């Protein structure tokens, strides 16, 4: 049977990645028949109505899912299509209460026009009462118009579809997790919508263990916890973890009633992680510092020859004192991405997923390549474009060792030379130069 997923027309490159991830999560065979970044309507083949409802119920970027009764480029064609494709379904809905609605993309219909359109479906043998609220079934006329049709004087939609409403998505929870209403946030908190999408794409779910090594104020942890995962997080900056007084990550979990989903948070540096090398996590997700708004630092001294010995102050080892702050040094963003991939390889269970955000310049000459690892298969790359730069959400699947090709030995990236933040981070350098090409 064919079903129609009605997406939101925003974050276009994330939509299919999210639905495909949900299909994997729910164990549903999903076949995409037609999909375009320019349209919110996606035609798919699914095993059952129940599967369609299950596929979409957790989605953030879908709005709803429908059973397709007919589709064509004109209304006359649509009526023929409905008679040919779905006449066998008509008897099922002869007596139930129902409602018709009109969903128009890139066009508009006045209430009077909508009523006229709906009247044209009078040939359907529905005898049940029409109800605007509390109806048993909703039938939707989905219209798609070409972009800017009014300006071109176009009178008719380019495609029309009649579909029976089956279920809606989880889009309404975006408002619940709105950062404006959250107790503990900072300048780099990821917005609620994209945090929840990231958690979906990483397959967060009940009983699973998730980890964010750059947890910050815990935007991803909250999103994973919402979907039922036990959320762990760490950060090199203890101030993020501790927050101020009672305003901290734990306060966010408490605010949303997610306390049983709080794993732990601790202060640690990914390049000197205290986590033991074992397959501990079902998912790892993070938004590592790009080194622009917040510095990218790891433990150690800028001068590698310094600080090899314990420092004593007034006869006491300085590092044992309460107020001791360990020295940190700038680190290469690309090296950090490689470290994240290595960490994910030994920490993820088989088929567990790693998702991280990374920035890149929009100019292809300054584009930052997607890092690769023989044990990690890229499952999706989604892009959010800003003016001069973009950020991508890259997702990998941990391939079981038995499936990793033996000859695939990873090319080690040549270590970035340099000690200043600019030398170590090509994105930062490009960002502060406005991504202008050399000599221009």
């Amino acid at each position, binding site marked *: 049977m064919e079903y129609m997923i009605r997406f939101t027309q925003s974050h276009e490159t994330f939509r299919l990645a999210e639905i495909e991830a949900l299909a994997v999560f729910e164990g549903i065979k999903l076949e995409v028949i037609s999909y375009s970044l320019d349209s919110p309507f996606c035609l798919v083949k699914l095993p059952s109505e129940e599967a369609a409802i299950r596929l979409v119920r957790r989605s953030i970027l879908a709005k709803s899912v429908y059973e397709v009764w007919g589709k064509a480029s004109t209304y006359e064609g649509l009526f023929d299509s409905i008679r040919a494709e779905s006449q066998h379904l008509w008897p099922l809905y002869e007596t139930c209460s129902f409602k018709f609605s009109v969903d128009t993309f890139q066009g508009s219909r006045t209430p009077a026009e909508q009523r006229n359109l709906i009247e044209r479906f009078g040939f359907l043998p529905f005898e049940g009462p029409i109800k605007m609220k509390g109806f048993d079934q909703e039938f939707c006329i989905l219209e798609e118009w070409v972009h800017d049709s009014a300006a071109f004087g176009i009178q008719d939609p380019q495609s029309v579809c009649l579909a029976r409403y089956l279920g809606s998505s989880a889009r309404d929870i975006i408002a619940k997790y709105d950062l404006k209403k959250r107790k503990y946030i900072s300048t780099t908190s990821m917005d609620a919508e994209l945090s929840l999408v990231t958690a979906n794409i990483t397959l967060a779910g*009940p009983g699973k263990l998730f980890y964010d090594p750059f947890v910050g104020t815990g935007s991803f942890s909250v999103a994973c916890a919402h979907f039922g995962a036990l959320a762990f997080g760490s950060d090199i900056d203890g101030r993020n973890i501790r927050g101020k007084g009672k305003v901290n990550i734990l306060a966010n979990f408490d605010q949303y009633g997610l306390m049983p989903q709080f*794993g732990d948070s601790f202060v640690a540096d990914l390049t000197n992680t205290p986590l033991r090398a074992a397959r501990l996590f079902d998912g790892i997700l993070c938004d590592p510092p790009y080194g622009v708004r917040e510095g990218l630092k790891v433990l150690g001294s800028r001068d590698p020859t310094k600080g090899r010995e314990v420092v004593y102050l007034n006869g006491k080892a300085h590092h044992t004192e309460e107020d001791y702050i*360990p020295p940190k040094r700038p680190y290469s963003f690309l090296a950090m991405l490689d470290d994240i991939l290595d960490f994910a390889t030994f920490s993820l269970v088989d088929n567990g997923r790693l998702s991280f955000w990374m920035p890149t310049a929009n100019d292809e000459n300054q584009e930052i390549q997607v890092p690769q690892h023989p044990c990690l298969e890229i499952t999706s790359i989604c892009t959010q474009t800003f003016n001069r730069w973009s950020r991508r959400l890259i997702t990998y699947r941990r391939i079981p060792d038995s499936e990793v090709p033996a000859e695939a030995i990873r090319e080690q990236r040549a270590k970035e030379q340099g000690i200043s933040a600019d030398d170590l981070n090509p994105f930062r350098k490009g960002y502060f130069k406005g991504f202008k090409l050399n000599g221009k």
Partner: protein
Amino acid sequence: MKLLTLNFLTCAVKSCKSTSASFPLHPKDCELVSDTLKSDPKLLFNILPRLDWSALSTTASELGFPGLPPSAPTKEELEANEKLFHDLHTLLLETHISEGSLVCANCGHSYKIKEGIANFLLPNHLV
């Protein structure tokens, strides 16, 4: 910090990681707090194969909890044994360390826990 997390953590010093003495870290002068959380069989069964059972036994006895079975139960055994299920839920998920430190038996470094948050940042001479 939950005792589950303690079972996932070892000494952050790179040269300690290859030694058996660095895991588990040993709680010292620890204050324990216990929450009441709804137990979740799916979560506990998922956690079970990821535990290092002998390290968990060491931690439990160091903190004065009743002894654990000598070897990890299978999922079926845990399903059938309500008391063990409850005990493990309490030990791993409800009990956490609010104050104290964790000591590596290999290098002797001590990681502080304050207000439930452990700090694993290393001084320069251990990086």
